[in-house]
């Protein structure tokens, strides 16, 4: 998907005359959005922004080691070995060895002669990598100026972590001018160094620079205009995670030391095999516990009592992403954890006083097909007509923030319809749900509306799986436990015949083996991902798991 951004100036942080000016450059291609004020506590803001930046650049995807040099050497040895084996060509062997030796000698000489040049080149590339690398961010962070706060949102490169930094109004002094709205900001990585220089003893001016909007388009000198090709999967991941915020959650508040202990344990221990989950054990009236697999280490959050009614255990994965909260722990007053269910997104909201930081994590770090079926995060609710959806949106556009009940009252629509409309608008990236306050906020992620029908599903089989589930054609026949694996057997009634998919999930709930008697599976096995029958079975199983723990979707 193509996105275009135009910036009049680069964002910059200047330290001069005993003060600091943080100036973000907004996207001139969007509606004018700007702000000018003074930050009361620069340190909190600094550390939170640094954490947000860490979220954005985090990429925990597995990167296989590069063995190409080794392979080249093996190939060379292999050729030599072959020559050696051919005894009648002994002269070839000697000749080859001579040539290889000469090549190595020349390469060594070349390295010596080019050393200074290579060094300078590397340093220049490092400079460019830091200052000019276009690849840090898939899409520039989004900033929203709302009546009660200014907040930043970003999504990680590996499409698994969502970060939101909200600077509440009490953190600002001397607000000079503002315009509500949402825009993208130019955020190069070189700003990070400047950001870390912020101090309380240097008064900090914060602004989203309105200057660019004052010049007519023609004749406007533009600092940067970029067209970015954003992968659909990235947008889909973003929308799935932030849409999940509007779903019912199990939540409880923990102390910073609890997260500290969890991170410390994970830092000091490295698992060699799965499962790699955190098991949150929730028992009514009892302190919340978390068991760390595969060691079984249990941490008790003694100051956090679970107030729910039902015993449940919720598993989450991709726990190393919690390291992203480390910078915030010294400043944090508390951390509220919101869990949707096993394998579902989870949210950690850190209260830093006048600043709050929300870390949203997808079900798994790797959002490939083995954990697929996340489409069901974007489904559900009563059908809503475009007219009703438009009414809700228009009302929210007027108010900027509101609760669902307030919007229902003002639009005259039923609460269910309002709720569904808001969910739809969340899926479309036009509205977001603030977990912290329980309000819905106007936040248009992109300048142009997103094609939701294209983004909802990773592939047509997900769509088909949803349809099968909605039509009640999927039955989970049995779930058997074998060691730490779950073997699911399902039955799916299709038009022509009944399919009998079988799925094996590992300890982390990921598909390790599956089989189906449909044509798609016979042709492709799992090379193109699971068929709709397997997908539907897995999703049904997950929903049942989450439903049996007292929460249904």
């Amino acid at each position, binding site marked *: 998907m193509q996105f275009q951004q135009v910036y009049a100036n680069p964002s910059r942080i200047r330290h001069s005359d005993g003060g600091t000016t943080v100036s973000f450059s907004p996207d001139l291609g969007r509606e004018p959005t700007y702000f000018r004020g003074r930050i009361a506590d620069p340190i909190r803001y600094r550390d939170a922004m640094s954490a947000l930046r860490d979220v954005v650049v985090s990429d925990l995807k597995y990167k296989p080691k590069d063995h190409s040099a080794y392979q080249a050497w093996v190939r060379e040895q292999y050729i030599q070995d072959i020559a050696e084996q051919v005894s009648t060509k002994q002269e070839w062997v000697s000749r080859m060895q001579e040539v290889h030796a000469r090549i190595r000698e020349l390469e060594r000489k070349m390295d010596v002669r080019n050393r200074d040049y290579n060094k300078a080149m590397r340093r220049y590339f490092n400079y460019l990598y830091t200052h*000019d690398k276009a690849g840090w961010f898939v899409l520039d962070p989004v900033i929203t100026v709302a009546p009660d706060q200014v907040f930043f949102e970003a999504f990680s490169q590996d499409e698994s972590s969502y970060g939101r930094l909200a600077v509440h109004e009490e953190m600002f002094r001397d607000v000079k001018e503002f315009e509500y709205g949402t825009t993208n900001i130019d955020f190069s990585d070189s700003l990070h160094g400047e950001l870390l220089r912020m101090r309380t*003893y240097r008064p900090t001016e914060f602004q989203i620079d309105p200057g660019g909007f004052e010049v007519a388009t023609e004749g406007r000198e533009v600092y940067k205009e970029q067209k970015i090709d954003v992968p659909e999967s990235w947008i889909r991941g973003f929308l799935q995670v932030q849409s999940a915020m509007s779903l019912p959650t199990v939540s409880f508040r923990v102390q910073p030391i609890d997260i500290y202990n969890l991170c410390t344990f994970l830092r000091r221990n490295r698992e060699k095999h799965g499962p790699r989950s955190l098991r949150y054990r929730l028992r009514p009236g009892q302190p919340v516990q978390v068991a760390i697999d595969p060691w079984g280490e249990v941490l008790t959050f003694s100051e956090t009592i679970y107030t729910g009614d039902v015993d449940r255990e919720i598993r989450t994965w991709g726990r190393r992403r919690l390291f992203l909260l480390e910078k915030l722990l010294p*400043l944090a007053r508390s951390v509220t954890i919101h869990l949707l269910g096993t394998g579902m997104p989870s949210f950690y909201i850190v209260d830093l006083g006048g600043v709050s930081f929300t870390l949203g994590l997808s079900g798994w770090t790797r959002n490939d097909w083995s954990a697929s079926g996340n489409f069901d995060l974007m489904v559900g609710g009563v059908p809503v007509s475009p007219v009703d959806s438009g009414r809700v949106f228009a009302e929210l556009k007027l108010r900027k923030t509101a609760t669902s009940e307030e919007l229902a009252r003002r639009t005259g629509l039923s609460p269910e319809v309002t709720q569904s409309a808001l969910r739809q608008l969340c899926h479309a990236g036009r509205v977001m749900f603030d977990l912290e306050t329980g309000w819905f906020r106007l936040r248009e992620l992109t300048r142009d509306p997103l094609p939701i029908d294209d983004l909802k599903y990773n592939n047509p089989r997900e769509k088909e799986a949803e349809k099968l589930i909605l039509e009640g054609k999927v039955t989970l026949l049995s779930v058997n436990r074998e060691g730490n694996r779950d073997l699911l057997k399902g039955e799916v009634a299709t038009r022509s015949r009944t399919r009998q998919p079988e799925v094996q999930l590992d300890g982390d709930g990921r598909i390790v083996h599956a089989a189906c008697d449909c044509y798609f599976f016979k042709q492709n096995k799992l090379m193109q991902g699971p068929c709709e029958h397997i997908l539907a079975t897995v999703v049904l199983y997950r929903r049942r798991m989450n439903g049996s723990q007292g929460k249904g979707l």
Partner: protein
Amino acid sequence: MDEQSSPRGEAFDEEKKFEAWWQQEDPVEPLSKEYQSLLDQENPLFVSKFSFRHRYEWGSHPAWFWTLYLDGRPLAREALQQWMSSRYYWFNQDQYRYLKAVLKLAEQRRDAEIWGRLAYWFDISSRSYRRPYSHRTDLYLRRRIWRVLRNLGREGASDYTRMAAEILIHYTPDDEWPLWRETRDDQIGGYLNFYVLNQILYRNSSRFVCEENRKWRLADRPPAELERFPEEREEAFPELWDREPERLWHILVNGKAKPVIQFAIRALKKGNPEYLGGLDSEAFLKLLNAKEPVKRAFAADEIIARMNPDQPVFPLLFNMLINPDREVRNKAFSFVEWNVSRWSWEQSLELTRLLLNKLIQDPELDGQVSHLLADLLVKVLGTPLHHLSTLDLATQLLKGKSHMHRMMVAEVLYRIHYQRHPYTERDLLPFLKSENETIRVVAKNQLVLHRKDWQIDRDFLSELMNTPDSFRFFLEEEALVEILKGFPLLEVAEELLESSVAASRELAASVLSLLRNQPYVKFPVRELLPFLSSELPRVKETAQNLLRYQYWHFHHDADFVMDLLSISDEDHLRLVQDTFSRWEYSWFWIELLSKHGDELFQRLWAKMTQPETPDSIRNLIREELLENLFRERLNSLPMERILPLLESTDTGLQELGIRLLNQLDPSPDALEKELLFDLAHSRVAVARETGRRLLEYRLSELESGDWANLAETDWEDTREWVFLRMETEVPEEEADPELVCGLADSSIPEVRQKGLQWAALPGMWPHRRRMVQRLGESPYPEVQLFALEQAGQLDWGAKGLEEMELFFRRVLFQVNGSRKAKDLALELLWREGAAEEERARLAVRLLQDYLRNAGKRDFEKVMVILTRLSECHPGLNTPLCRVSDS
């Protein structure tokens, strides 16, 4: 078995006379029950079933032919005749016996129909593989047939003509003739093989000779004489034929072979002219549609002969004029041609209308027919045609598909009397758009002729744009060119350029070139852009010439230049460059620059710096336009404008920035400090060098914060320079906390290290408290450690401790943080807490958050500190609960 003479020497007893089996007229094999039943019921299905099935069952019942003939009932006879009408059915040996029997019995009965057909069959069966009998038998049969006829003829019996006619009507041009050859009709000797036929038709002919072996051949005469159809009678017994003109007519109507028909015609003409004269015209009209050309020609002659030249029957004449037979048509044409002068005006009009209506109603009329009609209309009926010519007629004729239709359209269009039948220019559109050139030219001529009566507007032109051949008239015909020039030529050219027809697009160039003669027409150059960027070479060239040589057409303002820079094509940019060079000393160019120079400079500059500007345009602006047109202004650009160039990622802009910087050669005092800093931090080495050089003169002005900001750079050269200068400009003893903290706050490790070095100097000791508080805000572990080490040497008091709370939290809550730092922090908290209860409370507040540390060592330490603090200050509230000492 034939009749035989009695054996030699024996006398016959009349009672014992031999009677052939067929003479008994007894059926040999009855029909099948099914057929018999159908026949008895007189069911019409009998005929179709029998004729369909006979091919298969006749073989097994060869006597059915005989049975049917004997039956004699109408249905049986019909079935028999239908079977016999199948030309390609031949009989086998079994069948031959019964066929011969039928022949003989029919001969006896004088049954002309059956006998005639069988006689015809036997006469044409000349191929041996076709017949189940020998050559001798073949000759015998033919002679027998002729003998029968001859005997009848000699007797003068009317049966002769009756039976001969029944033979003659069956002969066809394709009898036994291979299909891939021409038919017999086309050959003078095409029917020589047929003995009986030749006997009947040519017994008295001088053209054909019958040899003694009963074979007919052509006489030894010149071919011309042989091929000429003689007036004299050639047939046998002509007098018998003359007695029966109906028979001859029957032959004429039903015969198929040309000699047969010719015989009948000649016989009638010679022997019975009054009979012919007495026949109704309808009979001849039917013949006009006969399959055989000789019949049609005869009918045409008769009709023409009967027609009153002064009062012809036009419908009849018309039918002849559109007859498929060319000879018929020609005869009718000649009749009209000869006699038109006799006719009245109304008569001429009537025929003209008939012909025109035919052309209108039949747009797909055969080409030859339409050719004749058109010829007639134009050459013979020209005057009535002129009278009847209207635009409506021409429009209707336009639907015709033949070439002659189209010629007629042109003729009618040309002949329209405008005053009597006025029309407008829009009425001519269908003709102007015609694919036929003649029609288009005639229509164009009409357009030119009557243009003054009409309003040729823009819509009219638009209609013609997709027909380049028509539109071209407006470029070639002088009168129309003048009309075209009355329109906005650029708009017209643009519309042509958007045409879906390639040839029309090419015409845009011709229209553009007309502007040459319109010096007072002015337009923004933006309107020329589609032509300048056209892929058609001619169009592009014409537009370029217009730009190059006729600048007076354009509005001379900043838009003029900027619009020309919107096309990134290299060729175009070269043109722009050349053209601007040529204009350099032109008055209008100088005027443009003087009036719009400011705006133009701003816009050029903006375009040059905008990232989306193509490189080719950016380079042209940078290297040529700004240099040549705004050199002075460039050279006096302020630094604020130059700096962004240095920061650009485009090397060309960087180079420009460097050049301008060198050109500017600012004095050190002329620029603000921040600008000099930016220069010193530039990614361009030359710019950094300049920045440093200028700063050399202003070092004394630099404050602590300035040094720190200067040092905050990725570039080693500037950083090293700053450190060097700091050593001289800011001696250690003069270093202040602002500078030290500024350096220690840096994001660059080397600068931080420097700051920490200075922070450790004795000169900083008086400022240690403030420094520690500031350094404590740093996110960097080494700075935090340093701060802690320094803090350990101070006594903080409650207020100081409270101010340091966040610092302690940052150290303690750092996951996997420095062990040393944590120990120092804990140590400090204990020491401070021990000194005073209020400080102890603060320490406890901090430590109780950290108490639930899962790390064993830290937990122990915290427990120890809390315990000791509670011992030092018994009233202190701690999270610990002491168990009794005992």
